[in-house]
């Protein structure tokens, strides 16, 4: 007996899906099933009309060329995403969409690409890419493991809190030790690898929030995370 159905909406899977972003969608779908819920996955691509029934929104990273393709559509759906975020809708934004969820991206040559302002943060193009394994700690989710590969450096404003504090790697930028951002039920991060498989606490936070918003209460099932724990332990021991 299914306890309910959750609709997962993947943003721009064609253009913004470069570092295994599908892994995050797959983890949400499978863990929902293990918790006893059904999952319906749909996509929003440039030019589509934005659906009304999404319970959980997820978006990934892309190349510069991919970001150009989605830019206009993202601006068009930006007010909807902002409204949903303020209303408590759970969302996960990784890498490229993390940047565009902010206020703007200023490239190295000074061009300003507007973001959609879901998150109070800004990104500045850097000359050097920040690449490598990352370990970060968060009061909310414990130790977070992932891999970063970005040239934009992100700085948080007063309206968001960092997702975690970096203990290995760079995270948001090369200056402070922040990684990612949190605001209401939006989780944003530079980390892929993919993020959710090795960080099931974040996956279950998104799931619990989506189910509670829709059904009032969340009844978790038994999920065995032994493999994720072992994968985390090994990832943590690898060189940068």
């Amino acid at each position, binding site marked *: 007996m299914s306890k309910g159905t959750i609709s997962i909406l*993947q943003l721009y899977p064609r253009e913004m899906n470069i570092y295994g*972003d599908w*892994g995050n969608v797959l983890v949400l779908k499978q863990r929902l099933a293990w918790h006893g819920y059904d999952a319906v996955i749909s*996509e929003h691509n440039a030019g589509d009309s934005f659906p009304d029934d999404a319970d959980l929104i997820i978006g990934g990273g892309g190349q510069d060329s991919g970001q150009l393709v989605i830019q206009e559509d993202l601006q068009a759906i930006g007010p909807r995403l902002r409204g949903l975020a303020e209303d408590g809708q759970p969302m996960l934004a990784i890498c490229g969409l993390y940047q565009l969820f902010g206020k703007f991206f200023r490239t190295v040559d000074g061009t300003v690409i507007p973001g959609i302002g879901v998150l109070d943060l800004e990104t500045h193009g850097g000359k050097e890419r920040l690449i490598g394994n990352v370990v970060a700690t968060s009061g909310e989710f414990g130790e977070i493991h992932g891999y970063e590969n970005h040239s934009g450096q992100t700085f948080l404003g007063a309206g968001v809190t960092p997702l975690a504090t970096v203990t290995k790697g760079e995270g948001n930028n090369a200056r402070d030790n922040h990684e990612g951002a949190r605001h209401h039920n939006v989780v944003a991060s530079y980390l892929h690898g993919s993020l959710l498989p090795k960080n099931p606490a974040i996956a279950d936070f998104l799931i619990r929030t989506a189910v509670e918003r829709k059904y009032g209460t969340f009844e978790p099932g038994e999920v065995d995370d032994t493999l994720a724990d072992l*994968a985390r332990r090994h990832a943590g021991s690898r060189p940068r």
Partner: protein
Amino acid sequence: MNPLSVLVGKAVRRASKLRGGGSALPGLVVERMDPGFMGRALSTLEHGVMVVSGTNGKTTTTKMVVELLEGQGLKVFTNRTGSNFTRGVAAALLGEVDWRGRLDADIAVLELDEAHAVHFVNLVRPKYSLLLNVLRDQLDRFGEIDATTRLLGRIAAATAGTVILNREDPRVAGLAPTVRDAGVVYFGLDPSLRSTFPNDDELRGATGVPAPSDLPADVVLEQVEGNGAVFGVGGRSVPADLRLRGVYNIFNAAAALAAARTVLGGAADEDALFASLSAVEPAFGRGESLTVNGQPLELVLVKNPSGFRLGLKSFDPAGHATMIAINDNYADGRDMSWLWDVDFDSLRAAGVDLVTGVRAYDMALRLKYDDVEVRGIEPEIPAALKEFIAGSPGQPKRIFCTYTAMLAVRRELSKITTVEVVS
């Protein structure tokens, strides 16, 4: 001429060979002493220099082009040591040139890593370039696929004679306008085979088959059936039996045919070309069939999502014991994200006997999310290999492995059993 640098380089090469050292040091020495050495040595060849580059299949394709041209009586210089860097080419040259720095060959066919190829073409202008594909691989080194495409574009722009392009890879075919002085020749697939080779834009989420390309191709892979294939060449359909396994290798054979035909022009002996092609063996460390305790054991190199997906597609898991070995050393790429861009559904029915390598737990976790049963996990490759062989007597075996995992597997195999290479 600088005979001194050649002599010193040759001496260093001998010395470093005695010490069992790498192949790059003598190249470094001669590069420092005599920066023009390589350009001079390669400039006198009758058919010039061909550069082979792209994400997947460089080593095997280079080997094919070399053997096709040798089969036509040409003397070919190539960087066989597998060190696909400029310095490796210089080191390989030192072994071949005479004391005056002259190379006794008709053509050089060189496998070059995308990043190093650009450095190389600044030193030596190729007459031909064969550009295979641009796939997501080693993004931790190159940053973006588009950046890799630009590197290949620099090679195309530097080419003086003919650029040979993969018509089916939109990023590679899209380089045609950047070709400045050279002609363009394409190799491609019959439309019925295009769905077998999805490009990276058709990974997860994207839909449909790429728009059929109507660019004229010199060689078209028309059919694949096991190790047999039919190539469309100059309006004729030519069947061939190959020793190479895997559809990706067979598509690379079309690339090699187009490259050889370009070099030879009207002088090609087509029967001999196909005879040479049928005799090509896989390159070392790029997928081999071995015999272990009387059972076949296949090593399948998987180093990026496209390669892994094609590997899974090419080899039916039924009846085989399967092991997967995933390392994250520098040469493999440290980022594990790519495992999440591969579908493992085809392994669900048979399951996986053993997962090994530094990132064995990442791999096992990946398989868990695709509902594929994993019967054992042992991160240490030597122990895993023993267990795998002992645990499946009387069964053919297959190991999917990343590059450094394959080297480790091969090293261990030669210790624990007599390894007979069968193809």
